[in-house]
């Protein structure tokens, strides 16, 4: 029996082991889903999560995160978004799974929390995509664009050192420009676009928001620089493409983590979403004279290149 066959057999056994003791699911696992806001997106995510969860899990959705301490004690808390997560991490006495929060933000939360004794188990599934995946994605769709421009500010959730290291690994050049205030945004952008082949968005509310994105996209278009976004909304707005995890993919991973918690009494390590979605906008690419591969091809290429996207 080859190693690969053994590995496959192990996976089957693992799944049997996991799924067999249904009795553990039949227990009274109470899940408190705390939303940061009443925005429809949070509601939608809560619904998706509920649909993903097995029927034995009693999920209670709390729309107002301030009421978290008043809630009857649950077995697990799933905090959705920054505000809910911040409150849950500081106030919850049961294990907390943080979702819909970028890695940097989660790490800040943990840093604040550290030092306190008897902290319950905390883990996370990050909202953002790993930089490796992002760079893989860029390489997969724009293999001839080497200068990756990044506009950032002090509020940007970005680990520049790690990023540079990853870039150097891939023989691409990282061009960065810091924006001190909103007023300087466009001059900084012009400057950056002048020396970049591609603009990669970073999670930064000051730079990339509903009001600015159109003009940023326009600037990019006029400069002939493709813009890589962070979500489907960016692609909708005019970005050439984005790699991201959908709500369903996140919900499935949460369900998986809960199952892991039921079985082992602890959450898996905080990690990025394992599964991801590739979204492309061939119309934009065509306008800019760029020929894009298909999304599936890109995704397959990414898996091939980095083995599971990591």
């Amino acid at each position, binding site marked *: 029996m080859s190693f690969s066959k053994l590995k496959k057999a192990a996976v089957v056994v693992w799944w049997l082991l996991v799924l067999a003791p249904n009795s553990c699911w039949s227990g009274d696992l109470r899940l408190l889903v705390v939303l940061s806001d009443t925005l429809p997106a949070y509601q939608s995510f809560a619904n998706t999560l509920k649909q993903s969860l097995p029927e034995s899990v009693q999920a209670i959705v709390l729309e107002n995160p301030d009421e978290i301490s008043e809630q009857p004690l649950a077995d697990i808390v799933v905090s959705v978004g920054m505000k809910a997560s911040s409150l849950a991490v500081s106030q919850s006495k049961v294990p907390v799974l943080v979702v819909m929060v970028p890695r940097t933000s989660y790490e800040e939360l943990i840093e604040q929390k550290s030092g306190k004794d008897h902290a319950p188990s905390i883990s996370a599934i990050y909202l953002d995509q790993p930089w490796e995946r992002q760079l893989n994605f860029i390489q997969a769709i724009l293999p001839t664009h080497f200068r990756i421009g990044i506009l950032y500010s002090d509020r940007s959730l970005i680990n520049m050192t790690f990023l540079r290291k990853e870039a150097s690994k891939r023989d691409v050049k990282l061009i960065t420009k810091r924006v001190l205030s909103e007023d300087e945004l466009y001059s900084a952008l012009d400057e950056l676009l002048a020396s970049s082949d591609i603009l990669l968005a970073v999670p930064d509310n000051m730079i990339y928001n509903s*009001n600015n994105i159109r*003009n940023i996209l326009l600037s990019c278009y006029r400069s002939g620089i493709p813009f890589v976004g962070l*979500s489907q909304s960016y692609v909708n707005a005019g970005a050439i493409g984005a790699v991201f995890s959908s709500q369903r993919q996140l919900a499935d991973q949460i369900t998986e983590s809960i199952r892991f918690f039921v079985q082992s009494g602890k959450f898996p390590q905080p990690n990025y979403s394992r599964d991801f979605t590739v979204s492309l906008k061939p119309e934009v690419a065509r306008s800019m004279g760029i020929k894009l591969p298909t999304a599936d091809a890109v995704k397959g290429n990414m898996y091939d290149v980095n083995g599971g996207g990591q």
Partner: protein
Amino acid sequence: MKQYGIRLFIACITLVPLIVITVCLEAFFLHNYFSELDLHSVERGRLIASQFAASSEYGVVSNNLQYLEDITRNVFKESDVSGAVILNSESVILSASGYTSGSIDKLLADLRYATTGKSSGVTRYGNGGLQILQPILPETVALNEFEAVPAIKPIGAVIVELSLARTEKLKSEILWYTIATTMGFLAFISLIVFLVSRSITYPITKLSNVIQKIAHGNLETRIDSTSHMSELEVLSQGINHMAEQLQEERAVLQQKVDMATSDLRNSKEKAERANKAKSQFLAAASHDLRQPLHALGLFASALNERIKFPEVRHLVDNINKSVAALEELFNSLLDISRLDAGVIQPKFQHFRIKELMGRLSTEFEAPAHLKGLDIQFEGADIVAYSDPVLLETILRNLISNAIRYTRIGEVKVAWLSEGTQICIQVRDTGMGISEEDREHIFQEFLQLNNPDRDRTKGFGLGLAIVRRLCSLLKSTIFVQSAVGTGSVFQLNIRLGDETQISNNRSLLAQHLQNEPGMLILVIDDDYSVQEAMTALLKTWGHEVIAVGSIEEALKAIKRSPDAIIADYRLKKGRTGIEAVQSIHQIWGGEIPALIVTGDSTLDLLQEAQSSGYPFMHKPVNAAKLRAFLRSSSRHRSLPS
């Protein structure tokens, strides 16, 4: 009450509501249309501004001034756009077209004032146009659905100024077009109303004209039925019928009038014949009466000269008085017939009225005082232009009447000048004349308060003569009177000119001159008249040759007589005029001659007048005869 024609009424009831409705509708639609135009302008301005703002967004964000200038220029090229400006969020002008720097500062000041407290666009009228300020808002694109949409802040603003000149011109054109159309429409309607009203008024006017003609007596007039209106047709038929009726009745009346007129004409002719017969009778009677009366007068005068016994003289006086009365009556009748015959023609001349009044004063003072009346003549020494003889006769009649009818009090004659006239009044304090009598006093033989016809009160011919004389002198006579108080007779004559008074000595002076003994030839076929005349003339110291015919005269005369007195009607159909002419042929034409006649027919009087010889009616007044002789002696004494 003010009256209006049918046309005006029709015009009022049709045109006034039409005009009101038309004007109201036009005003309503124009107002709506203009409002829509204004709204359209505003909408268009806002559309341009919002597109301008949208297209400027990226340029403002990227501060691409060249790009912004292009956009501004393109907006400015739009029709009606008179200005376009782009500002950034700090109101710094990034691009502007259609403004000077001064005007743009003012515009910004105005708009800042207008936009105070507003974040949305502002539309205002100013600078003769429409100014629209539109903030430039970034186009939002939903990006992070897990975050609330951030507040949108304007990144700048655009200003668009839209000229309203084209809109106003369009409005003006539409207004004038509407007015012209309305006027045309109203003119057309007015024409129709005019034609319709004429079709009503024309037959009515025709009817009216026909009625007026009928009213003026033209009953033959008829109306041609040309109206299409049944009511007017009925009316015209009625009028025609009425005219026919009137015509028939008038014919009947005319017939009656003609008959009555014919009767009247017959009566008049009968009366005229009677009047003529009366005149002929009067003329004949006066001639036949004059002959014996003339003789009687002459005899009586001769007798008076010779009678020495007082008792007989008294009888002779009475005879004389009776003769005088008869003479007066005959003279008056003769005067009237002469005046009626037009024999007497006034001889107008300038003379002093005071002299005339002096004579009358002398004449009437005695009779007035005899009756115990005061008589006064008052007036300025002015010159009159009239016939002094006729005027004297008028006044003599009036004064003698006044004295006759006044018992106590006074008679006053006064005259004064009034402009170009002289007003002469004869006043008395007599019995007066009642109002109804005043209309009749100028008729012949009318005597007031003399039912017994007392001869001493005259014959009632005086005022009849006065009336005739006044009309001859073309002067008017008025009477004012109150019963028991007195009467005033007033006549007006023309004022004369002193410079044109003739140098004739007054008649009064002539009276004073006495005549010497003369040889006088008397020719009369009536022997008694011959005798009487001879007796009288001889008493005056004259030598007389009395003959009965022309032939006798020619035989009897041995030397040239100093004067000839000839009867007009002689035997064998000869006349006194012929006798005088025969003697003049032998003895020269300078011998003064007097024609005497008892005839008063008009033909005779006119012949006598034309012969040029002095002329006296029988019975001859002794005084007049004497006056003739005096003038004859003066004439004879003058060198030939």
